[in-house]
């Protein structure tokens, strides 16, 4: 090969994967609108929520994790990570002792007042707050950029969104069913239209009966639920195979969901964590809603 040809090839490689050659993640904006700047890809990351841990693995940066908060249990490798406390009250000393070059926080789980100490001590904090499927994809892409795996992260994000779109095109235009998603039993809690679970219901061609409530995770009275008369009730319950949260509704045989026996249990981790596993959770939900349509 001529010297010129070699140069051309190197140049082409450079064009194909710019960020892996130029190891300069530069500056990105996080969910709080703050600028996070790194002068080299993060290689020692501490994740402060189970969801953030999953997204970091999805971005191809699992190897760079040096610590995680309690309950970071997926993928299985995450269980082996040193712990730095519970999300709502982390151990700053344990975090600093791991000498991280990036800490990833989650607005729904961590206290800003507490984590704001970290940038003061020279450790950048990147905040996540995914509320849409696009947010999840964008979060992984940004994490890929920060950790020096932009192409891999980009590809993963594209696959995830493509999967969601495929579900949307298969189920989105089906006969609409009215769905109640039960987050908790006592107090009775659900999600409004802003929540990702509600967006998953929408992708599957369902409508969340409480879409318009103002709070993200509203509390309800049983009376409100009976008045809304959903055709399907879905819950993750307290964990696998615990039907008690669904059984209670059988006391109200006039409920459309009870009359048609549309009471379904879903896997909690797949729908209630804003990560790529939402795709599996949404697929599971779509299948259940198809079953429900057949029974109505």
């Amino acid at each position, binding site marked *: 090969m001529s010297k010129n040809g070699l140069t051309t090839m190197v140049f082409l490689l450079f064009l194909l994967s710019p960020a892996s050659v130029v190891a300069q993640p530069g500056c990105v904006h996080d969910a709080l609108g703050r600028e996070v700047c790194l002068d080299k890809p993060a290689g020692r990351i501490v994740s402060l929520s189970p969801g953030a841990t999953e997204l970091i693995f999805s971005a191809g940066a699992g190897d760079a994790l040096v610590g995680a908060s309690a309950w970071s249990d997926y993928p299985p490798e995450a269980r082996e990570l040193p712990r730095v406390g*519970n999300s709502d009250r982390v151990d700053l000393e344990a975090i600093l002792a791991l000498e991280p070059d990036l800490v990833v926080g989650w607005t729904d789980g961590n206290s800003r007042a507490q984590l704001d100490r970290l940038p003061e001590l020279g450790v950048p904090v990147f905040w996540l707050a995914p509320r849409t499927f696009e947010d999840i994809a964008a979060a992984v892409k940004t994490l890929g950029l920060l950790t020096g795996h932009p192409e891999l992260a980009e590809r993963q994000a594209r696959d995830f969104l493509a999967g969601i779109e495929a579900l949307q095109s298969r189920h989105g235009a089906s006969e609409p069913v009215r769905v109640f998603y039960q987050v908790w039993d006592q107090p009775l809690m659900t999600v409004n239209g802003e929540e990702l679970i509600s967006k998953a219901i929408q992708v599957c061609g369902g409508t969340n009966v409480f879409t318009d409530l103002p709070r993200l995770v509203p509390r309800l009275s049983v009376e409100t639920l009976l008045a809304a008369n959903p055709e399907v009730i879905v819950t993750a319950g307290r964990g696998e195979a615990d039907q008690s949260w669904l059984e209670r509704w059988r006391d109200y045989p006039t409920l459309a969901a009870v009359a048609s026996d549309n009471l379904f249990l879903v896997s909690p981790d797949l729908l209630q964590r804003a990560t790529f596993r939402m795709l599996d959770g949404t697929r599971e939900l779509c299948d259940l809603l198809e079953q429900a349509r057949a029974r109505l």
Partner: protein
Amino acid sequence: MPASEAFRPLVLLALLGLATMVLSVSVGSAGLSLADTLAALTGSGSELNRTLVLELRLPRTLAAFATGGLLAVAGALMQVLLRNPLADPYVLGLSGGAAVGALLSMLAGLAGVIVTASAFGGALLSTLMVFGLAHGTGSWTPSRLLLTGVVVAAGWGAVITLMLAIAPTRDLPGMLYWLMGDVAYAGTPWPAFVLLLLACLLVLPAGRSLNVLARGPLQAAALGVNVRPMEWGIYIGASLLTATAVTTAGSIGFVGLVVPHMLRLLLGNDQRVILPACALGGGALLVLADTLARVVIAPEQLPVGVITALLGVPTFLYLLYRSR
């Protein structure tokens, strides 16, 4: 009692305080050796160790000591002012006012110094409100002040519950964290520390008048104490101490109620001894409690209020049982 003997407990308490501070600075989840800690304190050692000791543990220890001291002194003053053994620094609604201030600013999406400042503002607002309302149109009495304060406190409590119920999910972790109390909110312990020193210096010369006042306003007036200005002075002073404590560490319960009683059971009710003893004893208790809170089940962190109560309740009950 000769002066030197009366002040011997203070020396002991000062030593106890110092011992708890040394303990607090030298233990933590990072597991530095004593030699590492000493090296970091003298400015040598690795950069990581210096950060851990000088920027995390030391400010936190000092903040805990100052906050505990402020709360105990404020509690002792409130008990004298209201002549009610159940009085604590928060009985007149001050922590509720501070919490409403802090939570409001968090709801507005603010963070850091602004949250601290609005907590302080809320505390002062509550103080002035109770002051004005208790004054009313008629005559003023400590029981009227107490009643006004308790009702205002209940009002703040309701506002806090309402705010938590309607707060957006993303602000909740920060709000709950603030309400539980933690010694590490404020970046710097110095305002609290300086105020604690000032309070001790200002209160000491007034000790004799406070002793007389503790026996009741009529005796105090008969013995030549200018009761009304004195009472308002105590109220404003104690409120300022509490407001500073609350903005340093959120509302940490129990220290302000029980430390003054414990020390009275041990040392008698001479305000000239009790008030400085409260500054030292309250500080020592909170430093010890905070140390335990961050290491007992590390890396999980306990709210410090849990430990102050777990340490304080049995100690206090024992002292009370033993006393006659």
